[in-house]
């Protein structure tokens, strides 16, 4: 089972290391980890997807709170949330019917962000299962390079995980 944990952390040297080290030290498996800015300077937001049951997710949350630089943690598994993943996929164009390619791109709502003589680079954004599905449709065309950001997520509705409260 997957749990998506969102953590507001202080943007200080070594914080990513502290969080990553915690997962390693306590033998939890990270599926993806993203980190980026929030609307408040000095506070970053991490989204960590782990493969764990509910009890383990609660343990991880408690351990995260032991880190002095961690401000707040939320487990989005228990609440309605929107999640997004972004992939850049470079596919081979040589040897394919261009019209077929463009049809796949159109049907999957991928965007062409670059094109070369031999390859075309597509951007796919959406719920992680959507991105998975598009990638499997692109696979027969020949994927030559791919990168994914990993999941970022946010609670639905008016409830917020506000960084401003810590500014």
């Amino acid at each position, binding site marked *: 089972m997957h749990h998506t944990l969102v953590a507001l*952390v*202080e943007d200080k*040297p*070594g914080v990513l*290391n*502290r969080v990553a*080290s*915690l997962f390693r*030290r306590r033998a939890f498996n990270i599926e993806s980890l993203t980190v980026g800015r929030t609307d408040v300077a000095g506070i970053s937001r991490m989204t960590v997807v782990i493969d764990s049951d509910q*009890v383990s997710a*609660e*343990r991880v949350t*408690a*351990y995260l*709170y*032991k*880190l*002095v*630089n*961690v*401000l707040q943690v939320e487990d989005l598994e228990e609440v309605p949330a929107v999640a997004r993943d972004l992939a850049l996929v470079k596919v081979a164009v040589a040897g394919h019917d261009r019209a077929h390619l463009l049809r796949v791109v159109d049907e999957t709502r991928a965007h062409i962000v670059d094109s070369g003589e031999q390859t075309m680079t597509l951007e796919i954004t959406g719920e992680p299962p959507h991105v998975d599905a598009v990638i499997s449709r692109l696979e027969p065309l020949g994927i030559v390079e791919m990168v994914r950001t990993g999941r970022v997520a946010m609670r639905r509705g008016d409830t917020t995980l506000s960084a401003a409260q*810590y500014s």
Partner: protein
Amino acid sequence: MATQRTGAQIIWECLVHEGVSTVFGYPGGAILPAYDAMLDYPVKHVLVRHEQGASHMADGYARAGGGVGVAMATSGPGATNLVTGIATAMMDSVPMVCITGQVPSKLIGYDAFQETDITGITLPITKHSYLVTRVEDIMPAMKEAFVLAKSGRPGPVLVDITKDAQQAKIDWTWDPSPVKLRGYRPKLTVPQPEMASAVDLLAKSKRPVILAGQGILQSGAMKEVREFAERINAPVAMTLLGLGGFPASHPLHIGMMGMHGESWVNHAIQEADLLIALGMRFDDRVTGNIKTYAVNAKKIHIDIDPSEINKNVQADAAIVADLREALKDLLDVVKPANHEPWLTYIGSMKGTSAVHDIQALPDNGHLYAPHVINDIWRITEGKAIIATDVGQHQMWEAQYYHHELPRTLITSGGLGTMGFGLPAAIGAKMARPDAEVWAIVGDGGFQMTQAELSTAAQEGVKVNVAVINNGYLGMVRQWQEFFYDRRYAATPLRSPDFVKIAEAHGLLGLRVEKRPQVEDIVQQARKAEGTVLIDFRVEQEDSVYPMVPAGADLDAMIRRPQQTSVLVETAADQI
């Protein structure tokens, strides 16, 4: 008014402001500016013989005195030598601040001479750490380090300060404002719904057992625990680190639990219908097989660290709070109870299972470690501070030295660090100069940090060192005897003449080979000035009983073979 200060001076200014009077350390290149500044400040520095000694001394100092211990070392090997002591303090929640020098900031990352990533190395074994590269950041880091070390669940904090930050000068004044750490919440309010369910569980229980841990000492809840135990009339079982938190002579005190706990204590826990865990964490040495641990008992778990709740044992009522605060609240509402049938039952198990193991030892003219420790207890009237190493002597100490007072047992419980005893005893004596301090150590562990005898001699501190010398790495030998078919791989130990070792340090060395000598020699050691070492030549292949093999059920204990009395099993349900 702001005055010009170097970073090195600011370190000492901060230490003085934090009330630090003693620092344990070892100088070196990257910490030289701090050592130079030290001479102008009223702080005593204890020169150790190895930085591990500094971190263990700071640890013993903190455990005995209740304050924060401070260790100092240089970069690279100085810092890495602290590591074992830091990990020891982390596992046992000891408040400690370690200050290390670091290579100049411009050289960080260039594999400079004596450069090591000590904040990286110690990341999982510190409560928090700082790498300070600018002089302005020294005071905030120092202030935060002390707050973090001693508040909430205490622990070691490392402050690594580059040489250039120590050398730089700024206009400086002490900032008396309180530290603000927005991601740190050590103050917890007692959760009321959980309190209500705890009260409910207490009211329903017929067979309660209080599990008393180190949290009692940390929160200073000795009085409250006693009042609580008396109010609910429940037996009190101790963890190793909890010993001293509840007086051993109290009628409700039943003894230590766990791997080498008393048999009746482990049976009582297994047959209990309610466990009330006070500042303890259900370590595997305490629970044995977690799947069969106290399966019929509800659990009330009071601990200051939320991550300990439901970690090893699922709590039916979890109170995350300072133990003393929680108990005060509980005492406002908990009704008196009477559990005499249950206490009588536990008493009957005690009566039949042990005419105490110690009395079952054969009278063959040999010296037995349990006798030695029991005699030291009797002679010191149970009032000495005892620092131990790790192994058989440590367990015998826990069994046969009956601690009446808090902070009188200083032992590495979580990490199980051999070599801890002597330096921890020296640190304890520095914190409590009026107390009688003993280091009870094995011949193995003692040799790991034996060089600190030299520190004791130089400082003129008096600790009495009892080397329980059996010529083996005894606990490992015991496991080999029980579980490895007596194949004694690498456990026979040849040691130097410890009496001569003491004498070489200008200290008094004594030897005991027969039990009738114990009293006189112990008294001689107590009366002598300065540190004294006693080499107790004890039975070589004695084992610690009872023993719950690692991972076995808590009530599946190996008992001392000579013992003739048999435990009378009575169904607990009948009472």
